[in-house]
């Protein structure tokens, strides 16, 4: 069965969606991702959707769900590289993904993750 690869980068996970997201694939990703976060005790998840051109409300909800689940497992989720058309579609669908952090590209997304992790340490220290 087709799967979306999950790459491990230190304490972060990197997911690049490069195929059309159909519903089963999305659910599979959700399963795999939660599994990996707990297995590797990851602190952050970076989801790159720069090649994703079509979204529906299901995919939108899945992104929000993944972020919420990751949050429960103590990992921050950053969605990067959303296309303008995709952003407009999600807004028109009434999905503002309030719990999800976003960044322009993988580079700024990683910066954001490091920043968030820094906050986490300072919270622990202070």
């Amino acid at each position, binding site marked *: 069965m087709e799967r979306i690869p999950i790459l491990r980068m230190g304490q972060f996970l990197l997911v690049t969606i490069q195929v059309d997201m159909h519903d089963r694939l999305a659910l599979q990703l959700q399963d795999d991702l939660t599994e990996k976060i707990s297995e590797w005790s990851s602190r952050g998840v970076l989801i790159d959707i720069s090649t994703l051109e079509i979204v529906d409300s299901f995919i939108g909800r899945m992104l929000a769900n993944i972020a919420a689940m990751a949050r429960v497992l103590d990992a921050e989720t950053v*969605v*990067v*590289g*959303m*296309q*303008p058309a*995709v*952003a*407009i579609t*999600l*807004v*028109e669908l009434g999905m*503002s*993904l309030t719990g999800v952090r*976003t*960044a*322009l*590209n993988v580079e*700024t*997304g990683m910066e954001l993750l490091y920043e968030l992790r820094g906050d986490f340490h300072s919270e622990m220290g202070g």
Partner: protein
Amino acid sequence: MSKLPEMISKHEEAIRADWLKTMSAATRRSDLMSSEEMKAQSQELLAAIANGTKSGEITNLDGPAWNAVRELLTAISASRAKQGFTTSETATFVLSLKQPVFNVIRKELAATPDAMFEEIWKATHLLDKLALLTADAFQDTREKFIARQQEELMELSTPVVKLWDGILALPIIGTLDSARTQVVMESLLQAVVQTNSRFAIIDITGVPTVDTLVAQHLLKTITAARLMGAECIISGVRPQIAQTIVHLGIDLAGVITKAKLADAFALALQRTGKSVISTDGGNTKKTLFKKEG
């Protein structure tokens, strides 16, 4: 059976000469149109009308017999709309045909007043319809013209300006309606991708009023930009507009708002790790942007 077609065909030359005379007396606009062009147009139109009446359908202009006339009139009024004629001048072009036609009818049927009245009524009916058709076509051309201008205006009025590396500004001039919001949103998001900008400043100094709909449109744009990873700052909120927003109960929580574009720019610079310093210890007014660290 009406005698009108017969009479028009028989006296076509006379009617045309009479018509041109009437027109030159009433609505001749030599500044907009040459007399040769006018002559050619009237000859063509009169021939088409004579042809149309031959079909026998004098009061119903929707039939195929009148296709030629309809097309001709549409073309004529379209060209007149572009040349700068007024609506009444264009309609008068057709209506001034009445007198010549009536003259012919009078000459032909002077002996029988009843028949004369009948024919005059039919001719009036026909020419009125043709005049209305002309006016409609004229209006249509004008409206298309206005629609095109509006479109151009909309494209012109939504420029996205790059203020600094990673900082965009979008000065909005005029009322934000649904159609414009779409254009604004698309051009902003496109620019965010192209320039890799983390901050977008939406300046609403030029927006005359902010109601719930405009606020909703703004929030949509901001949410879409946030989804892409860019943060929006609203600037140019006038005191009057701040009051309106509060009175309407619009929730702008989670949106950064600033009174001036300069304030928004300063915030964006600060957030991207840049600051403005004076090069000469504050003695001169020259300032320079410098990246910290």
